[in-house]
C-alpha cells in the first residue's frame, strides 16, 4: 500500500484516506479539483516550518494555548479516583473548535483561497470560523440548521458581529447534517476561490486526518502536563464526547498506539438509544456513506439517512468520523452514550462541584463518570471541550 505520511499506524489513514474499512473520498467530480488540491498539499504545508511557526504562534497568542490541565479535586473525591480536566473551554471562543479553524485558515491562505465556508451545529465551529476569517480579513459564510439557529441564538449573534453571513439550512431535520449538505453544495457552486473549513473529523479524505492533526495539540499538551503533575505522561483513561468526533480525535491522538490508555468516547443517546430520538451512531449505525466518506451511519434498511436527535446541537449528527468508526469496530476505543437527561444532570453536577459550566455537548462526557467503576489509582482525563454559556437558555429551562 502506498503510504504518504510518516507516522503510519493502523489508526492513521492510508493513501486513499482509509482507516481500516472506513474513510475514502466519495465525492462528485465537481469537488474533485478542490479536494485533490488539498489531498496532495496538506501534509506538505503542515510540515513546513513557516506554517508550523504561524500555527504555533496563533495557538499561543490568539487561542491562548496551552490550555490548563486542571485537577478536579472535589469531583475526584466524589468518584474515588483522580480526575483531570483538559480545559478546552478556556480556548478563545470557548471551545476546542478554534484549534482546527486556526490551522485551516492558514491552509486556505497558502492555497490562495479568498472565500471561506463552514457548517455548524452548536455554532461553536461557526464562531471559531468567523473568528479566524475576521482575523485574516476573509469573507465568511456559515451554514447552520434553522432549528440550531433558534436553540443556539447567542452563537448566531457572535458570528454576525464578526461579519460572517449565517445562512439557515431549511431541508431535512434542519440541523447539522443539513447544514453540512448546504456547505458542500456551496463548495460545488464555487469551485475556484473557496475553501471549506469542515469542523469535525468527517468529510472526504484528507479532512478527517487534517482536522485530527490540528486537534492533536490537545493530547500533545495532556502528555507533558500530566507528566508534570504525576510523573507519568499516560492517563489510564481519556474521556471525550463525540458527534463527528473532533475533540475526541484530538484528545485520543497521541495515545492511539498506547494500548494501556483506555479511550472512551461518549455519544448522545437523545431520549434513549431505542427511543427513535437518538444520535448514538455506534449503537444504531451500520456502514454507509455520508458527506464524502464511508463510516458508520444511522440509516434505514433502504439506505436513507435517519434524522437524529440530541438536546445538544453539536452532537445531533447521524454519522461519526471514519477514525471513530474504526476505533469502535476494532475495539481500540470504548463507545458509550448518555441521554439528554443524563447530560443535563452531569452539567449541573460539574457546575456545582467544580465551578465550571460545561457546554451541553461536553456534559455528555461527564455523564459516564457514573457508569463506570473507578480505582483510586486511575488517572482519568476528561476533555472539557467547551463552555456552557451558549446553553444557558436550555439549562435555565430544564434545570428549574
Amino acid at each position, binding site marked *: 500500500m502506498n503510504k504518504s505520511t510518516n507516522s503510519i499506524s493502523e489508526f492513521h489513514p492510508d493513501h*486513499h484516506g482509509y482507516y481500516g474499512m472506513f474513510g*475514502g*473520498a*466519495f*465525492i*462528485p*467530480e*465537481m469537488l*474533485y*479539483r478542490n479536494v485533490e488540491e488539498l489531498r496532495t498539499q496538506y501534509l506538505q504545508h503542515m510540515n513546513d516550518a513557516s506554517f508550523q511557526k504561524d500555527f504555533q504562534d496563533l495557538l499561543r497568542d490568539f487561542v491562548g494555548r496551552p490550555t490548563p490541565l486542571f485537577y478536579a479535586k472535589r469531583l475526584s473525591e466524589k468518584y474515588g479516583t483522580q480526575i483531570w480536566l483538559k480545559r478546552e473551554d478556556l480556548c478563545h471562543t470557548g471551545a476546542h473548535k478554534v484549534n482546527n479553524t486556526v490551522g485551516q485558515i492558514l491552509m486556505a491562505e497558502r492555497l490562495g483561497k479568498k472565500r471561506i465556508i463552514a457548517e455548524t451545529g452548536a455554532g461553536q465551529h461557526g464562531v471559531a470560523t468567523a473568528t479566524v476569517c475576521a482575523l485574516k480579513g476573509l469573507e465568511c459564510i456559515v451554514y447552520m440548521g434553522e432549528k440550531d439557529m433558534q436553540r443556539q441564538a447567542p452563537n448566531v449573534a457572535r458570528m454576525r458581529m464578526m461579519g460572517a453571513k449565517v445562512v439557515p439550512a431549511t*431541508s*431535512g431535520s434542519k440541523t447539522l*447534517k443539513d447544514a453540512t*449538505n448546504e456547505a*458542500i*453544495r456551496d463548495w*460545488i*457552486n464555487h*469551485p475556484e476561490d473557496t475553501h471549506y473549513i469542515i469542523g469535525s473529523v468527517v468529510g472526504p479524505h484528507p479532512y478527517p486526518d487534517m482536522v485530527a492533526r490540528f486537534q492533536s495539540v490537545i493530547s500533545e499538551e495532556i502528555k507533558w502536563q500530566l507528566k508534570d503533575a504525576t510523573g507519568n505522561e499516560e492517563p489510564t483513561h481519556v474521556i471525550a464526547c463525540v458527534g463527528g468526533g473532533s475533540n475526541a480525535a484530538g484528545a485520543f491522538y497521541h495515545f492511539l498506539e498506547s494500548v494501556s490508555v483506555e479511550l472512551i468516547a461518549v455519544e448522545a443517546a437523545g431520549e434513549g438509544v431505542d427511543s427513535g430520538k437518538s444520535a448514538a451512531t455506534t449503537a444504531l449505525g*451500520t*456502514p*454507509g*456513506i*455520508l*458527506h*464524502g466518506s464511508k463510516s458508520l*451511519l444511522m*440509516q434505514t*434498511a*433502504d*439506505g*436513507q*439517512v435517519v434524522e437524529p436527535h440530541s438536546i445538544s446541537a453539536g452532537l445531533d449528527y447521524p454519522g461519526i468520523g471514519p477514525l471513530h468508526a474504526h476505533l469502535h469496530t476494532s475495539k481500540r476505543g470504548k463507545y458509550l452514550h448518555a441521554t439528554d437527561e443524563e447530560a443535563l444532570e452531569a452539567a449541573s453536577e460539574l457546575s456545582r462541584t467544580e465551578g465550571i459550566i460545561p457546554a451541553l455537548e461536553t456534559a455528555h462526557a461527564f455523564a459516564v463518570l457514573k457508569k463506570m467503576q473507578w480505582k483510586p489509582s486511575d488517572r482519568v482525563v476528561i476533555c472539557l471541550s467547551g463552555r456552557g454559556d451558549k446553553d444557558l437558555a436550555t439549562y435555565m429551562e430544564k434545570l428549574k
Partner: protein
Amino acid sequence: MNRLENLFQNKSKRVLNMYCTAGFPELNSTLEVMRSLQRHGADLIELGMPYSDPLADGPVIQESSAKAIANGMTIQVLFEQLKNFRNEISLPVILMGYMNPVLQYGFEKFCADAAACGIDGLILPDLPEYEYEKFYAPILKQNNLSFTFLITPETSAERIQKFDALSSGFLYAVSSSATTGSQQNNDGVEAYLKRLQSMKLNNPALVGFGIKDKASFNRACTYTNGAIIGTAYIQALNQGKSIDETTHVFITSITNNQYLF
C-alpha cells in the same frame, strides 16, 4: 450491444436525455412518466433513485426526491415497478443515484436486478474512479451495464481521457461546476464545450445541469451529441397538470422548430 450503444450509433446529434425522479409525483407514476417521455420524443431516460441527502442536486430535485421517499419509493419498490417495463418501453433507460442506498441494497444484487429488469446503465456521481476501478467495474461489466462518469469545466484533459477510457455509453458533461438547476455563464460554457468537442473522445457526450429550454438545448447540441434535462421538467410536473400533457408540451417546447418563439 445494449440499447444505449444502439441509440448513439443511430443518432449522434440532438439526443434528448430526460431525467425524472422515480416515485414522483406519485409513487406509481414512474411508468406513466416513462411512457409519456417515450411517446413524446425523448431519446433516453435517466431515472433518478431518490436519496435523502443528494449532494449534487439543487432544491428542485432535492424536493422531488424527498417527496418520492415520502411516497414510499425505495430501490426494491422501483425494481418491482420496472419488472415488466420492457414490454412497453424500448428507449434506453439508465439509473442515477447516490452510493449509499445502492450499497445498502448490495451492489452486486443491485446490478443483477437492474440488468434483469432491462436497465442499460448507471450514473453514481459520488462513486469516484478509484473506487470504481478497484471494486465495481467488473460487476457492471458482468451485467452488461454502462457506466457514465461526470466531467466538469475543472476536469483536466488527462482525467477526461481517463474517464473516456473507463466510461461506456456516454460522458456526462456538467455544464458548469454547480448543483443541478443552477444558472449558467453562457460564454464559459461554450468555451468548455468547444474544448470537449476538440478532444475527439470515443464516447458521446451529453451536456447536463442548467439545460432548461430550447435555447440552452440548442447551444449544448452545437458542440456535443445532446443534452440532459431534469430540473426544468420536474418543475413542469410540479404544476400538477396531467403527466402526459405536461410532457408533450415540455418536449415540444424543446425540440419542435415550428413553435420557435
